[in-house]
């Protein structure tokens, strides 16, 4: 019993970098969970992935200008991500091209540009850092940034929750009552980019989107309404962060993949065990009701 407790708690008692990493995961999970659920419900799961890659050139430029400056890299990443989102949105709006195609096009341009910039001016170590992040190196400034982004995300979501959901499920209705759906869509995209920037500090651009989409995809198997789905997703994200950090510490694994793989396990378990349409529920013979 004591041994278990020690396994679960000791790393965080002992090391301050583990404590910081844990708090960062907590904040990340709280923000990314609900955002991921809404991305999934808008059928934009893969666009989160595209956007996370689009962050790269901005972060790289920030890195080149100011070195390992958190502010510069985050700001750069935010601007780059938002630019790709806006350009893709504009093309979709003013041409016949669908959103998935225009997002793919712009993120690929952005990603190539990012890799180019890093490889001309930096070393491959820098590139690895940007791609995979290091949650164990989170300092107070990063922590503050991640926590602020989580707070802004939750507050904004609370304010625009109603139109955001209507826009998702019946955008025609929102138009018919003369509400501007585009504004809320844009605000939401800003939140997505913000959370990816928060995530890339800790997990790197490749893994950041994992903490967004895997808990959301898992939550779909447990809840029937958007708010409960968001709550489940945030919980899974936070727990994945905690368990992932423990695995990383005790088994000497890289922290980013350990966290995302934990979320991945949660997803696989949810597919099988989930109360809503999980495989067990679907295939176990249960007596049917009268009506």
């Amino acid at each position: 019993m004591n041994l278990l407790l020690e396994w679960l708690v000791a790393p965080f008692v002992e090391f301050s970098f583990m404590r910081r990493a844990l708090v960062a995961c907590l904040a990340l999970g709280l923000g990314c969970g609900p955002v991921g659920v809404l991305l999934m419900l808008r059928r934009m799961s893969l666009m989160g992935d595209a956007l996370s890659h689009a962050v790269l050139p901005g972060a790289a430029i920030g890195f080149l200008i100011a070195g390992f400056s958190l502010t510069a890299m985050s700001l750069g990443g935010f601007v780059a991500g938002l630019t790709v989102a806006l350009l893709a949105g504009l093309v979709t709006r003013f041409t016949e091209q669908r959103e998935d195609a225009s997002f793919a096009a712009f993120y690929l341009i952005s990603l190539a540009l990012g890799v180019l910039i890093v490889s001309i001016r930096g070393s491959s170590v820098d590139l690895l850092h940007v791609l995979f992040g290091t949650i164990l190196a989170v300092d107070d400034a990063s922590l503050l940034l991640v926590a602020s982004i989580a707070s802004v995300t939750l507050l904004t979501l609370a304010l625009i929750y109603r139109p955001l959901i209507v826009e998702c499920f019946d955008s025609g209705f929102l138009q018919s009552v003369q509400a501007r759906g585009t504004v809320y869509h844009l605000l939401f995209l800003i939140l997505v980019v913000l959370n990816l920037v928060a995530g890339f500090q800790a997990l790197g651009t490749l893994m950041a989107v994992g903490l967004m989409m895997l808990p959301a995809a898992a939550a779909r198997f447990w809840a029937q309404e958007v708010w409960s789905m968001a709550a489940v997703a945030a919980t899974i994200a936070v727990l994945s962060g905690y368990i992932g950090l423990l695995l990383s510490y005790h088994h000497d694994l890289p922290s980013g993949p350990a966290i995302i793989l934990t979320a991945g396990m949660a997803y696989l378990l949810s597919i099988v065990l989930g109360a809503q349409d999980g495989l067990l529920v679907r295939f176990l013979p249960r007596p049917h009701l009268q009506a």
Partner: protein
Amino acid sequence: MTMNPAIRLDDLTVCYNRHPAVHHLSGAFNHGSLTAIVGPNGAGKSTLLKAIMGLLPVTTGRIDPAVLTPTDIAYLPQQAQIDRQFPITVLDVVLLGHWQRIGVLGAMTSALKTQAIEALAAVELVDFQRRPIRTLSAGQFQRVLFARMLLQDARLILLDEPFTAIDARTTADLITVVRAWHDQQRTVIAVLHDLDQVRAHFPETLLMARSRIAWGQTAQVLTAEHLQQAREMAEAWDEQARLCAVQAP
């Protein structure tokens, strides 16, 4: 007919890619009227409703909403555009009908909730409040959308093929709702395909095939001759079509 239009169309043309879907259409939907819009596929019926809602740009001519403002209009589009797998309960969908009262941030009071439950009772779905919409049949879901429109309390109601793929019993129940709107002096315009239904329940009809074939009392509009005319006119979307010679007045 009285001279009290709710919506007046003045030489209206609406195009997709310069090809007119609604072509030089003039006339008026009177206040408190119950009108069916009838015509073959591609006749511009849905386009006309969307143009009235301001969802499509007008190419030439004018839509004059008289005293109505955009918020006085409720619109039921064809069903395909709604995500029926979305995780939301029946009651929450109906509550959206209060949008003009509560907007983005307004509180949902228990009085508003009671009204929503009454609306659900009016379409005989009162026991379905907590059900997720993905568990509903097409007919049940259409009842939900009608309940939402009941709450919208609109003066002009536009229905785009509201009874397509809906069984007879549900259609009958929903037509009762439409008749009640008519009795309350609301203006109702519905795109329909079932001519017997139109003859039985809709006093006025607009028969169109891009342009107007006939508009007025249903019995005088739905004649064999007019219907034949509509079929012939609907056929040609001509790639090589010449410029339209009709000048706007």
